């Protein structure tokens, strides 16, 4: 029955579950009952329970409810559609394999995002361990004084500045300022304290201000 419903919903191009849990619905909150589908009456936690017993339809419902946000995050972090797809798929496969470890202490979406972030960061390290975003914390202080060889446009400079942020600052900046994740969820995803997440965001913005001093004046 769920399969049939999902087929019908996919045909319309929108899934009610996507809009509901796309806003990081807690596992204790019931989904909206917009159809005769039992899946939407289930909480994320109940869907996880079903998926644990091997029910791929339940897993599909979890996928539909969360994939947009995960893909957006992956894409923001890597800037390449092919890689973003790979990382999104890896994250969901990993989630399927590790469902037994989900204890429900936090929302399913929070747990999923932590896995997605981990997949992306590990993937980026494997792809190129020597990329400039891997520069050490010590190098971060030098960022504002990096000489530029060309005169790129403001948009290019913005992109370059974000790319140049050390990974730990860039991840928090992308999640909070560009994708709207709350600090609590970022902290869980990165395995750090909420205060650390806030401090990293502050430092990321400071570094951007330093790097973009000129560009910001042009904006004014």
């Amino acid at each position, binding site marked *: 029955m769920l399969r049939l419903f999902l087929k019908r919903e996919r045909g319309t191009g929108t899934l009610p579950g996507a809009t509901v849990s796309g806003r990081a619905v807690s596992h204790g909150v019931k989904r909206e009952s917009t159809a005769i589908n039992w899946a939407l009456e289930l909480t994320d936690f109940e869907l996880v329970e079903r998926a644990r017993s091997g029910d791929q339809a339940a897993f599909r419902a979890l996928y539909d409810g969360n994939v947009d946000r995960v893909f957006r995050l992956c894409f923001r972090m890597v800037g390449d559609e092919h890689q973003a797809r790979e990382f999104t798929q890896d994250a969901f496969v990993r989630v399927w394999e590790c469902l*037994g470890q989900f204890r429900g202490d*936090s929302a399913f979406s929070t747990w999923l995002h932590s896995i997605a972030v981990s997949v992306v960061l590990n993937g980026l*390290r494997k792809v190129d361990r020597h990329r400039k975003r891997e520069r050490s914390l010590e190098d971060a202080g030098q960022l504002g004084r990096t000489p530029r060889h060309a005169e790129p446009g403001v948009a290019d400079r*913005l992109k370059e500045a*974000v790319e140049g942020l050390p990974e730990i600052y860039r991840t928090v900046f992308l999640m909070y*300022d560009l994708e709207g994740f709350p600090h609590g969820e970022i902290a869980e995803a990165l395995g750090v*304290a909420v205060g*650390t997440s806030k401090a990293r965001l502050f430092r990321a913005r400071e570094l951007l*201000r330093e790097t973009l001093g000129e560009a*910001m004046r042009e904006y004014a």
Partner: protein
Amino acid sequence: MPRRNEQMDELLTGLREGYNPPPPTPREEMWAIIQSRLRATPGSGVHSMDEARRARANRLHRPLGWVTAAAALLVLGLGIGRMTAPESGPGPAVAPVQNPAVLRTASLDHLVKTETLLTLVRADARAGRVEPSLSSWARGLLSQTRLLIDAQGDADPAMKRLLEDLELVLVQIVGVTNENENDPARVRSELNLALDGIEERNILPRIQAVIPASPRFVGT
């Protein structure tokens, strides 16, 4: 200051629109690949935490049988040597191991086990608690790490540095597992310190870089 904030807001607006703007999610294409990957790994179904640990331990122990035995003998020998060494007299209590190849094999085997522990600790940390069974495991690995540090001598300075960093992280993990479970805030705070230690010292990537891609060490 208000002007500065306005500029930052403009900057963020520009970035939200212009920095790696995600395309529409290729939902169905990704799901098809995920499904095929799930089908391609029969038995990769859902496991409980304990089952996952047991399976992992089995995977690690089977191909590593003789290496483990060699490492255990080495550690035992070092331990006996340490206990029976005379109190006085010049020279270190434990002489560096004469065969660097054996020492390196034992160190690599040890790193494989430690990586498993660190990965589990990180996963537990995201759920906000630590499995009590990790305590004795972490203690055992800490003792072996110290013995291996002593045994290194000047044979492999890079390995020695890695083991020394590992020792500090393991001390933190043992500290976490010693904390009173009735004080979750305290446990959480200690856990964050341990995780910061793992992250700041870049422990997991360094271990993964050292462990060779031999089937003997696969499973990490």
